[in-house]
């Protein structure tokens, strides 16, 4: 496996979606290649930072309106 091939398989590897042979080649390459190890680390760092992005919120008005609508919805 080349580095150029490795970088295209990173998400599939992280998802556990590689077939057994490819996964073995991927791990073997990783063990021998500092460049790809760093690439994988940076990929993971990127993913975890994406998970830290601040959430957007509904405006207070919209939230109040929806709570009213829920409260006033006719139920049997």
């Amino acid at each position, binding site marked *: 496996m080349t580095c150029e091939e490795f970088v295209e398989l990173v*998400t599939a590897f992280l998802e556990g979606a590689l077939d057994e042979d490819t996964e073995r080649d991927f791990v073997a390459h990783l063990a021998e290649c500092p460049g790809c190890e760093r690439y994988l680390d940076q990929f993971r760092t990127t993913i975890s930072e994406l998970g830290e992005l601040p959430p957007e919120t509904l405006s207070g008005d919209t939230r109040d309106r929806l709570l009213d609508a829920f409260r006033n919805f006719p139920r049997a």
Partner: protein
Amino acid sequence: MLPADDVLVAGLRSGDEATFARLLDSWSASMLRLARSFVSTDASAEEVVQDTWLAVIRGVAGFQGASSLRTWVYRILVNTAKKRGVKEKRTVPWTSLEPDGGPTVDPDRFRGPGDDYPGHWREVPEPWVLGDEFRHVVARALDQLPERQRVVVTLRDVDGHSSEEVCAMLEISAANQRVLLHRGRAAVRAHVEKYLGGAA
């Protein structure tokens, strides 16, 4: 952690406000982001989310439990957002998914065919020294992704949905989802690298 679906659904059906408020506060942020991918303004996205919750209030009596409650709500959202996006002449062609093609890392970063080690790094990626601006750089990179990549990366990595949930919400195959996710993540990583000056 939210209670199990049957508890939530029972609460919604019986008019329990605390249950509704909890769902509203737990899910609306990611629903806004998802809606924003289909419509052209933040205000439109907020209306899509509002209309979705109104449809949930009206429709929860008929919820069959064929999918998770959250997936059901998000399907309503996507349908509402798509209709609105069409009106705004802004559509995301999820179904005509072309293979986006092309490598996700600049081919110049790798050694050419004449080299002893073709396809291997010319120079290994520079280590990252991350400062306070990292989050900002990542946020900006996400904004700049092509539409479909942005939706999938947002749902998976920002909001933490599973691959199965995202495929169900967007009605795309696992393979397509993975391609979009990988391309999006790689582009965000490349953006950070460029920002840090690691790549020429």
